[in-house]
C-alpha cells in the first residue's frame, strides 16, 4: 500500500496497463510535450502523443485506432470538452460494434474530470454522468477513492468497450491507500462505504464523501446510515442498493447533477419499480438545484448538495 493522491493513482492505473500491454495508447492536449514527460520517457512517442485542441478528431482517432486493434486512452481533462465531440462519444464509439453485427470491438477510455465546483463557473463544473449512463454501448465509471481510481482505470483499459472515466476534480489531491502492484476493480460492483441499518444513502464521486460526512453527523443523533457507492453507473449494481433498502426501508439518493433526468432519478425509478414494497417512505433525491453553477462562492455552495442538506433530508424522511 502507498498513500497517494487520487490523480497519481489514476496515473498508476494507466502506467500499470501501458506496461503490460503494448497496445495501450495515451494521448490528448497539453500532454507529452517534452521528452521528460513520464509517459513519453517510459513508452515513447509511438504510444504517447500530444494533440491540438481537436476533440472530435481526438476521440474519432481513438475509435479508429481501437477498431484497428489498439487500446487508446484519451486525456480530455474536462468532461465538458467531450460535449464538443458528442457525436463521437454517443453516436460513433458506442455504435460500431452493434452496427457491424459484432465484427469490431472499440476498446477505448475517455478520461475526463468533472464537477470542478471551485469557482469555475458555468461551463467547467457540470456533473454530466447522466448524459452517458443510458447510452447503449458505453460504460461509465465514477471513482471516489484513490484505490478505486487506479483499479477502475485499469479495468477500463482492459474492457473491450468504450468507457467514459469521470474523475471528480475536487478529489484530485485527496490522498488514499492504494494497493501496490497490479490492482483492478471490477465494473458493476457497488461498495458499501459505511454500514448502517436505518437509511440507505447512495452517492458517487465527491458526493460519497459528503454522504459519509452526513452519516457521521447522523450517527451522533442516533441514526445509522448505510452509504453505498455504485462506482460504475453503467453497468449499475442495483442489487447492492436493493439489498440495502430491504434492510433499511428508507433511501436518499445524492447527486451533484441537476435534478431532472439525473442519475438519481434513474436509480429512483428502478427502486420504485422493483422495491416499492420494501419502502417505508418516499424515495428522496438530494441533488444540485436546477440551475447553471454560479461563479460566486456562497451561491455555488448553495446550489451543490452538502452534508447539511443530506442529513436534513434523512431526518425529515425518518421523521426524527
Amino acid at each position: 500500500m502507498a498513500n497517494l493522491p487520487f490523480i497519481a493513482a489514476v496515473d498508476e492505473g494507466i502506467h500499470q496497463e501501458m506496461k503490460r500491454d503494448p497496445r495501450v495508447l495515451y494521448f490528448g492536449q497539453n500532454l507529452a510535450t517534452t521528452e521528460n514527460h513520464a509517459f513519453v520517457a517510459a513508452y515513447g512517442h509511438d504510444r504517447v502523443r500530444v494533440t491540438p485542441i481537436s476533440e472530435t478528431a481526438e476521440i474519432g482517432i481513438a475509435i479508429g485506432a481501437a477498431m484497428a486493434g489498439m487500446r487508446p486512452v484519451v486525456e480530455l481533462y474536462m468532461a465538458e470538452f467531450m460535449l464538443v465531440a458528442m457525436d463521437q462519444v454517443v453516436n460513433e464509439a458506442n455504435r460500431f460494434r452493434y452496427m457491424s453485427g459484432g465484427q469490431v470491438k472499440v476498446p477505448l477510455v475517455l478520461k475526463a474530470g468533472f464537477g470542478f465546483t471551485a469557482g469555475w463557473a458555468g461551463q467547467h463544473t457540470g456533473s454530466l454522468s447522466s448524459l452517458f449512463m443510458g447510452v447503449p454501448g458505453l460504460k461509465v465509471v465514477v471513482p471516489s477513492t484513490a484505490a478505486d481510481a487506479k483499479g477502475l482505470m485499469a479495468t477500463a483499459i482492459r474492457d473491450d468497450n468504450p468507457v467514459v472515466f469521470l474523475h471528480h476534480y475536487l478529489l484530485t489531491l485527496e490522498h488514499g491507500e492504494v494497493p501496490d502492484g497490479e490492482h483492478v476493480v471490477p465494473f458493476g460492483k457497488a461498495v458499501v462505504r459505511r454500514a448502517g441499518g436505518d437509511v440507505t444513502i447512495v452517492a458517487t464521486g465527491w458526493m460519497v464523501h459528503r454522504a459519509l460526512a452526513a452519516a457521521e453527523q447522523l450517527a451522533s443523533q442516533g441514526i445509522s446510515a448505510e452509504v453505498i457507492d455504485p462506482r460504475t453507473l453503467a453497468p449499475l449494481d442495483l442489487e447492492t442498493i436493493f439489498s440495502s433498502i430491504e434492510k433499511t426501508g428508507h433511501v436518499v439518493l445524492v447527486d451533484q447533477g441537476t435534478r431532472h433526468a439525473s442519475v438519481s432519478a434513474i436509480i429512483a425509478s428502478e427502486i420504485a419499480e422493483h422495491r416499492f414494497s420494501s419502502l417505508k417512505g418516499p424515495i428522496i433525491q438530494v441533488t444540485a438545484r436546477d440551475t447553471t453553477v454560479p461563479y460566486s462562492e456562497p451561491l455555488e455552495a448553495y446550489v451543490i448538495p452538502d452534508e447539511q442538506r443530506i442529513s436534513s433530508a434523512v431526518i425529515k424522511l425518518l421523521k426524527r
Partner: protein
Amino acid sequence: MSTKAPDAERQIWMLSQMLRIREFETRVKQTFTEHPGAIRGHTHLADGAEASIVGSLAHFRTGDAALATYRCHGYPLVLGSDPKALMAEIYGRADGICKGLGGSMHLTDVKRGFLGTSGIVGAGIPHAAGAAWAAQIKKKQEVVLSFFGDGASKQGAFHETLNIASLWKLPVVFVMENNGYNVVTTSAQEDANAAAGRPLAVKAQSYEMPGITVDGTDPLAVAQVVGEAIERARTGGGPTLVESKVYRLSAHGNIIAPPGVPLHYPEHEAITVFGRREEYEAALRGDPVPRFRGLLVQNGTLTPAKAEALAGQIADEMAAAVSFAIKSPFPKNESALEYNYA
C-alpha cells in the same frame, strides 16, 4: 514515386468491378418496385462513382483498411465481400453481413479490411486516421483509405483530422468523392473554394499535404493518382487529399417518407430542384461504366463477346444476391440485444 499501371488483366478486373457495383446498385434500386417494402429507411447509391471507387482500391493490399460513409455499397463489393450478404444486410435479414443490425448505411466487412462506415457526415474521417495511427505503430507499411463526399469537407472533423494526419505523417489517403452536390445544395452554395472557382483539393494546402484533383470518371487516372498517394503513405510520406470528381447518377437517396408510403428513387436533384436537365443528361452521356467498357473493347483489351459474357455473368451474380436476400429469414428478436457490448 513508382506506381505500376494496371495491366490488361487488371484493367479487365477493374471493368468487372465497375460493372458489379453498377449491377448491384441497379438491383437495389429495382427492389423498390420488385419487392416493395423489402428495403426500409434510406439507401444511397454509388452509381456514377464506380470508376472512382475501383480506381482508388486498385492498389489496395491485404492488411490495408478502408472506411467510408453511408454511401457504402461499392467498396466491399470490390474488396471481395459476398454480394449475397451485402444485399441481405440491405434487406435487414439474418444472413446480412452485419446480421441485419446495420443496414444499407453501415456495411462493414472487417475480414476484408472494410473497417466501418459512419452515417454522420465527416464523422468517419478521424476513424480512418486512428486506424492509420495503428498502422504506423505496427510498421508493416499498411495504409488506410478514407472515403467521404465533398459535403464532409465542411465539417470540423475533416479539418481537425487533416491537420493531425499531416502533423503525425499518418499513412492515410483521404479520397473526397466530389459529386458537386451536398444532397440538394451545390458546392458553390456552400464551399468558399468552389464559389471562388477553385478545386476543393486546395484545402490540402492548409494542412501541408498534397492535394490533387482527378477525373473520377476515369478509373485509370484515379488508380494512378490514388496509387501514388498510397505509395507515399506506405513509404512514410504522410497523407494526401485526393479530390475525385464524379457525378452521382441517382438522386441523393430514395425518398424520405413515413411507413406506408412506398419508397422510390426520384430523379436527380439537378432536374427536380434546379431544372438543369441538360447537366444531368451530359453526365449520363459521360457515364463511366459504358465508357470504360467501350474503351477496353475499342483498344482490343476485351472482345465484344467477352464483354457481353462478363456483363451477363455479373447480372446473374446480382440476381442471385437478390433471390438469396429476399429468402433469407429475419433475425431473431434476441439478436437485437446481442452486440451492444463486447
